[in-house]
């Protein structure tokens, strides 16, 4: 009889602690009860009880994006596990490192359609970087450490570990020094950078007359913000960011040229189109930026720096790929790039900015979403942690908030998950307790995960929720107006709750603002309040997000402002 035998559930907790985890988000249920039974023995692990597993997963995601650590979510089998899927898919699309641990029905019951049984490893195959069904407790240790390794290295992503109820109770040995040795011949995240690729890219950069950098989320993941700034300044290359690349480059910098694409700044899309060299750094040429792939960047050669080989030539043909971690690649690339000034090109870009200002807020008697964001940006010095949902408010936030060096931007860019705004802010605030977290919400998405306000209240998290409330699914109204002959269907809410009263019902301070005069006062009041606040900004019913390039279109179809 071996002496060091402990329960599978204890191995899970010990492995979490060894991986540096301090916070987990989750909801207990039948199949995962053995793990919850053990959790109390480990006060190092703080558990945040959410109201829905989707909330747990988004909160873990927000925690990860704010801290750079791996987020952890717990859920039970069956519905608990399937409720995670939207959160996992969100993290998968945006390369966010998560480890989700789900309970499974006991081993003898697997495959019998037992109560709360779902094949969750089967169901989550396309939305996880990898997943496991652990069939014996002696595997838990090595699987846990493998999962964290896979989640956080290479192109990060979510990993799910499914553990049957009786495996949590099974006894096994756990030896950190042995179990944390990774042996994965099929997984090599540390790519050796090819000098030839670097040389080829350097030649293209040094020859380019009109280079532009397209910086994506990869820059933030790789913590390469300083190296990005270095190359941009050294070779005087204007920088556009992707939606998720926002906050990778200081927006008050002279070389900052906004973000291009469907709702990006017109000047950014034009500059990208006019360039003779696009240097894509940690971006994946998403269709919201590219539009018509045949037409995209017709004047330019492309350099693509990415850690994921599968992204090279996926949608756009690349002349010079460089595979590797961005921070390392730029470390090799930057010294070889010539110092340049590109005066003619920079003048041209300045001209695009002055000719296509893009961020003009229309004259209005009533309160506009854009005004709310602009004022919020000013009153937080562009320094807040900003979460968003998906839709018009998200685009206005991306456009009108000026993100400075210390800001953090959390938005579901790839999957476009409405309902991300409330729970992601929970994770963000826990991850950054000393920072001001503003979550910018639409009245639609807010109601998708509204139950998490209870989690906010319970933990007294001082999050400021700004609802841009127009009683519409605003982006749907906009698309129906523009592309479906103005036939507005199922985009108006006539039964929205009173969000101020609702907040108060949760024990959260509620403020309503329905005119421009009260805007500053309300935001200051929210900023100064010690606890959570919900500010219900009643904004203009129908307002459009501009500029806009219709889906699948190109810069030739750019619509800069509303035609009255």
């Amino acid at each position, binding site marked *: 009889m071996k002496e060091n035998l402990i329960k599978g559930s204890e191995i899970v907790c010990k492995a979490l602690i060894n991986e540096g985890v301090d916070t987990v988000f989750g909801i207990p249920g039948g199949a995962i009860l053995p793990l919850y039974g053990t959790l109390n023995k480990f006060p190092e692990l703080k558990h945040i009880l959410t109201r829905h597993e989707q909330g747990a997963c988004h909160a873990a995601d927000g925690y990860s994006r704010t801290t750079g650590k791996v987020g952890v979510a717990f859920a039970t089998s069956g519905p608990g596990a399937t409720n995670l899927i939207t959160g996992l898919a969100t993290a998968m699309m945006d390369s966010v490192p998560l480890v989700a641990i789900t309970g499974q029905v006991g081993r003898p019951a697997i495959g019998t359609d037992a109560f709360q049984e779902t094949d969750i*490893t*089967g169901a989550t*195959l*396309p939305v996880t*970087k*990898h997943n496991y*069904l652990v069939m014996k407790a002696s595997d838990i240790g090595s699987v846990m450490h493998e999962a964290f390794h*896979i989640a956080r290295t290479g192109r990060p992503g979510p990993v799910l570990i499914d553990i049957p109820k009786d495996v949590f109770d099974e006894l096994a040995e756990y030896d950190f020094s042995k179990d944390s040795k990774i042996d*994965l*011949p*099929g*997984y090599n995240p540390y790519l050796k950078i*090819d000098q*030839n*690729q670097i040389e080829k890219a350097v030649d293209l950069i040094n020859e380019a007359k009109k280079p532009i950098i397209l910086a994506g989320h990869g820059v933030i993941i790789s913590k390469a913000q300083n190296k990005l700034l270095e190359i941009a300044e050294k070779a005087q290359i204007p920088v556009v960011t992707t939606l998720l690349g926002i906050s990778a480059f200081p927006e008050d910098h002279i070389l900052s040229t906004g973000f291009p694409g469907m709702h990006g700044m017109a000047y950014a899309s034009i500059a990208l189109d006019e360039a003779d060299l696009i240097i894509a750094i940690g971006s994946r040429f998403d269709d919201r930026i590219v539009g018509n792939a045949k037409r995209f960047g017709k004047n330019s050669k492309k350099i693509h720096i990415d850690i*994921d*080989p*599968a992204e*090279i*030539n*996926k949608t756009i*043909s690349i002349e010079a*790929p460089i*595979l590797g971690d961005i921070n390392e690649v730029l470390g090799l690339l930057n010294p070889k790039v010539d110092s340049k000034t590109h005066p003619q090109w920079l003048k041209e870009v300045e001209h695009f900015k002055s000719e296509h200002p893009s961020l003009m807020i229309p004259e209005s008697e009533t309160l506009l979403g854009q005004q709310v964001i602009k004022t919020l940006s000013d009153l937080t010095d562009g320094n807040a942690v900003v979460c968003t949902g998906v839709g018009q408010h998200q685009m206005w936030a991306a456009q009108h908030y000026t993100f400075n060096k210390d800001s953090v931007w959390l938005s579901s860019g790839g999957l476009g998950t409405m309902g991300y705004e409330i729970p992601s802010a929970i994770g963000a605030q826990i991850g950054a307790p000393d920072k001001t977290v503003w979550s910018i919400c639409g009245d639609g998405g807010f109601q998708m995960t509204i139950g998490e306000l209870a989690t906010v209240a319970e933990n007294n998290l001082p999050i400021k929720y700004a609802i841009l409330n127009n009683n519409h699914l605003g982006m749907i109204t906009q698309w129906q107006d523009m592309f479906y002959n103005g036939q507005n269907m199922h985009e108006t809410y006539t039964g929205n709750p009173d969000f101020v009263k609702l907040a108060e019902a949760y024990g959260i301070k509620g403020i309503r603002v329905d005119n421009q005069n009260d805007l500053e006062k309300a935001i200051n009041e929210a900023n100064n309040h010690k606890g959570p606040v919900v500010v219900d900004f009643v904004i203009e019913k129908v307002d459009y997000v501009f500029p806009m390039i219709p889906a699948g279109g190109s810069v030739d179809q750019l619509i800069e402002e509303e035609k009255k």
Partner: protein
Amino acid sequence: MSNGIHRRTIVALVHDKPGVLARISGLFRRRGVNIESLAVGHSEQKGFSRMTFVVGGAENSVKNISSQLNKIIDIVDASDISEKNIVWRELALIKVKCNQSQRVEILELSKVFRVNVVDVGINNITFELAGGKSKIDSFVELLDQFGVMEVMRTGRIATLRGATKIGINDGEFGESNSSDIYIADKDASGSV
């Protein structure tokens, strides 16, 4: 080629454990890639299997399918060897109707094709035949007059010629990198 179907031959070294094929076939499925043939067997390394896929699909779906496959953790290495100098074979078992009076004629024909007889019944005969696609196709066509009862084919297995091992370092992103798709000639066969 015809109907815009682009065909690729992919060889993968994979962990020999449950669920690996589901991960691979899931990837093909969600990219609209059809598996035309699949052969799996143990490799020279313990605990690892080698799979040979012939897959077909739209140009964009199959273009970088091997790099997508390499993202699957349980795949040690996947290589698209369509453009490489390869040898390939498949094995077929062909059961054909054959009464006593036809037996001599059929056996003569089989000699031309260097085919093995693996089973003889009173009214049927089963051949084993290894080779490229066209060799098997022609033999099946030839037997058609007698009445082919059943054709079982393993699908293609393939390897690079010479001492080069199939591996990730054979220049997926080298100088010659191009998105041009090589389309295997329908009638081309292995080195018959």
